[in-house]
Structures are given as C-alpha cells and as structure tokens.
C-alpha cells in the first residue's frame, strides 16, 4: 500500500474518523453529501487541517508529522486557486522552484507539463484570462509539477459547466491513468466518481458507510444516500429464503438468502396499475401518489405507502393512467429485477 491512513479530526459537533488505503496507481474517490467530511479528510491528508488523532503513512514513512510544505503531495483545489499574479507557466513552475530547481529548469518542466495538458499556447496567460476548463488543467499541471507521490483532488470538476465537464472528465481520467502515485479524489457527483475512480469510499457524517469498486457500489448500495446517487430504490429487511420482508411487504428477489438483507430495484422496473392487475405479479403493493416530476425523458412518480419508492414511467403512461397526486394505485416490480444482498 502506498497510502495507509487513519484520519481523525474532532471538532465541536463533528467527528471525522476514516481509514483509507490506496495502492500506487490507484484512484480512490471519497464520495459523500455536503458536510460529510470529504474535504476535511483531504485537507488532513495535505496537512492543511490538523488531525486530532490517527496517522498517515506514505510508503511506510509517517506523513502526519510533516508540515504541508514538506509532504510529497500535489493538490488540486475546487476553485483551482491559481496565483492571480503569475502566468500559467509560472504557476506550474512554482512548485519546482520551491523544491530548489533552478528557474530555467523549472520553467522547462512547467512548459512540458502545460504541453501535456494541451495548454502550451496559454503559457503566458494570467489565470483570469483562462476559461474554467483551462484553469482546471493548469491546476492539475501545477499539482503534478512537484512529482507528488500522493495526488489530492478536491471536487476537480465541480466548478465547470456541463459541457466542459464532459470533456475535462475524460481528459482527467487519462492523466490520472498516467499518474503512478496514489490518487485521492473528493466529489459529490456519482458520475465523476464512477468514471474517474478505481474504488469508491462513501463517507456520511464523518464515517465510512460503504467501500468498493464503482460497479459494486452502484449495484449494491448500502445507504439511502448511495441508493439515491446510483438511482435505486433501497430497503432494509429480513430475508427468509423465499423473500425479503420489508415492513408489511414481502419482496421476492432473484437471489435467495437468509437474515438481515438489503433489497434494491430500479425505479424503471416499477409498473403502476389503476386496479389490481390480473395474474398477480408477486411483488405487488398498494401505494399513494405523493407527487410527479420530470426525470429525463420519463416521469418520476413518488410513491408513499408501505414502501416509499420512486417509479419511472413514460409520459404516455401517466396520461393513460390519469395519475394525480393523492391517488391510490397498485405498484409492482418483477422479482427478476429485484436484487437482495446481505445487510
């Protein structure tokens, strides 16, 4: 393991306690809602926020005893924090200069890095003349210029508009793949996390609630927050072989297990009926419509009742069924699209 850290930061009314291991070349995303402690964890790794307890080891050597300027890290801040009084080139050359590299050599390194991120033409530009996407790439080049062993990215794409974001995300993915140190990335955007990271660590309320590969987390969410992020209806119940009992409803899933279990199904798998359907699908319950909202090309129906659920149906189906808030309705989901896994 390149990075082996146990971060503890105690503040009034908030405690961050997160264990983190990242291999060389691996990209780990810290994912979580606002205020979960993601950025605090990143700042603790960087040495910008003092830790109350815990340790940080990088390649076996303690990092937490060093001040920020002595840590072999590179950090990309959410709003980049490019020095406004320096050109893009001098921003990138700043780190090497601090490491004692002669000016000409530092500028050569910086020029090569700007070339790599495709900004050689903007080397002389001041940060305020750069677009958001360009500034992001300069910030990445600046962080890489110090040849860090640990790269820290704080919401690297959050400040970009949707179109730029798409392009920068794929570029960032390429640069991260080229980077051979450990990378820790903080984001609240599941798509960024899924695309950029090899492994996700979900943090809520200062603690790790789930950890795994993006595919694993997307398929088997373990908290409501993760379920919402990956777009699944998630319930916790007790399995008895035949199905999972969630409150009064028994949900049959494609997996059979026993004991405490999670059960999840996508909103698009939910079918709605005005009257009790014939042939009785197995997972059937009566629900009340809480509200309707547009969701992509479909309509997302918020259901209340024995199960609080989202159902995604076509606008045509909404018209056919004549759905209105407050109305009572039958909802069903196929067992083959319902997945159960141990809690």
């Amino acid at each position, binding site marked *: 393991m390149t990075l082996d850290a146990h971060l503890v930061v105690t503040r009034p009314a908030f405690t961050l306690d997160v264990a983190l291991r990242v291999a060389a070349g691996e990209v780990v995303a810290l994912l979580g809602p606002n205020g979960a402690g993601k950025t605090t964890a990143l700042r603790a790794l960087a*040495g910008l926020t003092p830790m109350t307890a815990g340790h940080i080891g990088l390649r076996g050597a303690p990092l937490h005893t060093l001040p920020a300027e002595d840590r072999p890290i590179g*950090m990309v801040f959410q709003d980049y924090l490019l020095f406004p009084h320096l050109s893009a080139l001098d921003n990138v050359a700043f780190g090497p200069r601090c490491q004692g590299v002669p000016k000409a050599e530092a500028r050569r390194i910086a020029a090569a890095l700007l070339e790599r991120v495709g900004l050689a033409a903007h080397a002389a530009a001041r940060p305020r003349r750069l677009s958001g996407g360009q500034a992001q790439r300069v910030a990445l080049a600046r962080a890489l*210029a110090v040849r860090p062993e640990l790269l820290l990215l704080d919401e690297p794409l959050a400040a970009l508009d949707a179109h730029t974001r798409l392009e920068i995300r794929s570029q960032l993915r390429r640069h991260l793949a080229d980077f051979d140190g450990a990378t820790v990335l903080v984001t609240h955007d599941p798509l960024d996390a899924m695309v950029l990271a090899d492994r996700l660590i979900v943090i809520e309320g200062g603690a790790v609630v789930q950890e795994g590969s993006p595919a694993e987390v997307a398929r088997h969410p373990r908290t409501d927050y993760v379920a919402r992020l990956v777009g699944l209806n998630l319930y916790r119940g007790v399995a008895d072989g035949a199905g999972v009992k969630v409150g009064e409803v028994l949900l049959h899933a494609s997996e059979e297990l026993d004991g405490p279990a999670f059960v999840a199904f996508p909103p698009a798998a939910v079918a709605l009926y005005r009257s009790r359907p014939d042939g009785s699908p197995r997972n059937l319950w009566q629900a009340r419509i809480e509200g309707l909202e547009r969701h992509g090309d479909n309509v997302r129906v918020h259901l209340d009742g024995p199960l609080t659920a989202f159902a995604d149906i076509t606008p045509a189906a909404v018209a056919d069924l004549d759905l209105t808030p407050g109305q009572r309705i039958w909802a069903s989901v196929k067992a083959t699209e319902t997945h159960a896994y141990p809690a």
Partner: protein
Amino acid sequence: MADPHGKPATGREIAGRAPWMLVVPALAGLAFLVLPLAGLLIRAPWSTLLQRLAEPQVLEALRLSLVCATVATAFCLLLGVPLAWLLGRVSFPGRRLVRALVTVPLVLPPVVGGVALLLVLGRRGLAGQWLESAFGISLPFTTAGVIVAEAFVAMPFLVISVEGALRGADQRFEEAAATLGASRWTVFRRVTLPMVMPGVVAGAVLCWARALGEFGATITFAGNFPGTTRTMPLAVYLALETEPEAAIVLSLVLLAVSVVILASLRDRWVSTP
C-alpha cells in the same frame, strides 16, 4: 402601476426632493472645507511664485521634507509590513490588544508623541542614554530625529492599510502554495506580498503623506533647526510670523503634493462603491 404615457419612475421621483434641513448644512460643510483652500489659491503671490520657490531656505526645507518623509516611509515599510503580517496571519494571545496599541499613535496628539519620544530616546531617556553611551548616537534635534518622529506618527497608517489588505486576501492561496512545497517565508514573499501589493502601495503613500505633513512630534522631538530639522510644515509656521507670502507659497507646495496623492489613490480610497 406605471403610467402608460410617461417614463417609468426613477429613483429621484420616488425619493422626492432632498429636504433643506440636510441640503443647507451639507452645502455649508462643503464650503467650510473648500473655501480655505480656495483662499490659499486666491491670495497666492503668483507673479513671484517661482522666485520665492527658488529661495534657498524654501528649497532646503522642501528637500529635507522629501528626504525625511521618504526615509521614514522606507523605515515604516521595513517594520510595518511584518507587523501587519503578524497581526493578520498569526494568532497569538493578546492580538487584539497589540492591534489597539498599534493604532494609538493614530489618535494620539502628535505633540504627546514627541514628548514620549523625548522621554525614551532623549539624552536622558531610557533608551537614549544607552544609545549615546554605547554607540554615541543622539537622536533628538537631528535629521534622524525628524525621521523617527515622522515614522512614529505615520506607521499606523501603513500597518492598518496592509493588515486590511491581508485580511481581505484569500488565505487559501497561501495553503495552495504550502501544498506546492513553499515555506512560510516563500509563501509570504511570492504569494502573500504580491497579492496585497495594492494595499502596501496605498499604505505607503498614506504613510508618506502623513510623514510629509508631520509637525507636532517633529518640533517637539527634533526641534526647528534650518537645514537639519526644519521641514516644510515647520517652515510654513515660522514664515507666517515674518513673511506671510512665503508661508502661502510653502503651503501651496504642500497642497499640490496632497492633491497629487489624492489623485493617485482616488480609485482606492475616495471612490464610492
């Protein structure tokens, strides 16, 4: 509803006419501030102006004033910028008290400052005695004394201006520099100082202007000797007794300097948001 035939209501129409209870005192206040300066311009002996400006005593006082104010400003920059950094960037117990102490010379009558300087740096003063016996340095009634008196009175202007700029500057840039391996000194030199430079320049200009106009502390601590300690404000005061026209000429020079300073700082200090 807007009148369909008329223009939309502007702010002035909504607010109504300005009440005379405010307008009359406002105009009187304006006149009070502007008329004395206008009087100076009207009574100035324009025909003999250049001739009077070229008089040796005038040139001497002007040169002494410029040199002393400039050296005092350099001294203030050397000590005041680090002091502002300490107040703005390092948290230590008693910081509020130190900040209050720094601003005392700002509100202290300059004569009192001069007396205090005499008590400490005078021949019989606490530090003055030691300075004289150890190094043979005596500050009172010398040009160096003028610089000390001016720096004492003017430094708070610099400190306050720079500290304000430091507080307004985003400290996260300094964090970013630290993650790039910059020591605190490098951070100060290459990130903090360039970012607060407008505040430093404004503070230095204010400091210089205050030093140039210094009277009370200077005459108390450094005396009034032509060539060594008689700066422009002292010369103005003295000339008023003997040749009022010379006093007017000297005043005009100081007024011109003030106007130039005001113009150079107008964006920073005089502009309204």
